[in-house]
């Protein structure tokens, strides 16, 4: 964990509704899938807090390392970020958070589920599992997607997993499966009946809650990547607390999304206190 001064290589909008940011670090650092950074622009006085971005992709090379991020422009922080140009510098604290646990068992199919801007949390995981020869499927949901738009993130995942391993769900049926991504997952489970499976999910809370329910019903393990308002990202403000329960015999208590998370086992999260 350091406060890296990084240089922007590219920063541009990308369909359906994201921005892709590529930056260069002067050194290679160890990153676990699902870890994030806290970022701010140079001379940024407002907003005060840095913004959390999960590390989408990375590439080591002779000059150090390039990192890629996928983000959605929502408010002040991401608007400011979207106005930065190649050559501009960012301050990037990281890597932060626990990241996804390594998958010890080999015979298990990894089912990755994302909604909207939850997607970038899953790429390094997908790539790593595929590299290890595991079975991996990605289900990704969007509200809507232009029928003819090229989807660069799709190609990223297709290169890593093969195109047949990816399912796109759109709420309005504009492309792929019509319905919620969790419905696409359930349809798949009905159809393919994988013997052993594990869920990795990132997306809006209602989606994660539904993933947790499906996991419970089918007695499958599930990891979810949570979001919370973060002032620091490294464990000192206690602002990002979520209520969790580790084993049924211990009392529930707050854990920090930025340090003990953002990845939690779905059954440890007390969903109605989120």
């Amino acid at each position: 964990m350091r406060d890296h001064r990084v240089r922007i290589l590219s920063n541009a909008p990308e369909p359906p509704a994201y921005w892709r940011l590529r930056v260069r670090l002067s050194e290679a650092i160890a990153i676990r899938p699902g870890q994030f950074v806290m970022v701010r622009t140079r001379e940024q006085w407002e907003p005060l807090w840095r913004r959390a971005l999960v590390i989408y992709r990375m590439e080591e090379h002779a000059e150090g390392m390039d990192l890629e991020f996928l983000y959605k422009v929502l408010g002040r922080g991401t608007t400011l970020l979207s106005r930065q140009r190649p050559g501009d510098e960012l301050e990037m604290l990281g890597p932060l958070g626990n990241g996804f646990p390594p998958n010890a068992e080999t015979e298990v199919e990894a089912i990755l589920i994302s909604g909207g801007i939850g997607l970038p949390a899953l790429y390094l995981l997908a790539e790593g599992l595929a590299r290890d020869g595991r079975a991996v499927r990605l289900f990704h949901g969007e509200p809507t997607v232009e029928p003819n738009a090229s989807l660069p993130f799709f190609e990223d995942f297709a290169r890593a997993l093969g195109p047949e391993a990816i399912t796109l769900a759109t709420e309005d049926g504009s492309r792929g499966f019509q319905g919620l991504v969790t419905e696409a997952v359930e349809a798949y489970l009905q159809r393919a009946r994988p013997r052993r499976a594990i869920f990795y999910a990132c997306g809006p809370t209602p989606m994660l809650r539904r993933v947790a329910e499906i996991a419970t019903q089918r007695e499958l393990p599930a990891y979810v990547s949570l979001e919370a308002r973060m002032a620091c990202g490294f464990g000192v403000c206690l602002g990002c607390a979520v209520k969790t329960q580790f084993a049924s015999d211990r009392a529930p208590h707050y854990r920090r999304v930025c340090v003990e998370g953002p990845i939690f086992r779905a059954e440890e999260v007390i969903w109605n206190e989120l």
Partner: protein
Amino acid sequence: MSCDLSVEIAGLRFKNPILTASGTFGYGLEFAPWFDLGRLGGICTKGLSLKPLEGNPPPRIVETHGGMLNSIGLQNIGVRAFVTEKLPLLRQFQTHIIANVFGSCFEEYLDVIRILDDAEGIAAYELNISCPNVKAGGMEFGNDPDEAARLTEACKRIARRPIIVKLSPNASDVVRVARAVEEAGADALSAINTILGLSIDIYTRRPRLATGMGGLSGPAIKPIALRMVYQIACAVRIPVIGIGGIATVEDALEFLIAGATAVQIGTANYYDPLVSIKILEGLQQFCQQQGITTIRTLIGSLQMDERLA
């Protein structure tokens, strides 16, 4: 020539006037990967209570223009766990550890201090009097000069270490509270704690913090904090530690010039974990540039037209 940055507060010598504020610096150890904690003048710990506290339900924080509201709910591991788990590691750094103490009644403050009194490696206690006093119907201790004074006196009577009273800006008259606790024996004061504020989600029509109101901190409050520190420093003879929105060396200097003997850096630690060291280095540099040989000549050097004060 390098400047002598050391200051004295409550009989303690601080190597420099840059401290970190309670609740914004964890138990200190969280910052050990970032820099040598021994470079700081001092560290105020997260507020410690007798029993561990779980804290408030989320959302606990919200960003505002130039600041943030928090309602963490004083979550902490409890004084005993602090003494056994954190203090042994923390006291190895060459800096003053100030234990920030609170309770929901008089006795709890005293109990916490008693436990800390038995431990090694603490320099002083900082009483957080901006806490709901259960016995007085939830009113803050810090709101009422008499109650603040009684609490200070009780703590002074038993504590074997100096007492710094941390003042609440939400008090009706912070200067009166300052005078009252000085008279009750406080060794020093620190000011200010967060200012009560509110933020509303216009879509749900609920407060953005789960608990309703929260405490405002950050650069937004600096002019108010600086004014209060100036007023307090004018009104008392004991040292005052300035807190509130300090994010740059200029900010720290303003507080020293206004009369603070030292400062605490709070919210800025969140968005820049190295900010306290940057401020320290900036201070050294400023003094060098300005030919200041001891920081003490700067403290309280504000030239305020008497008619205006």
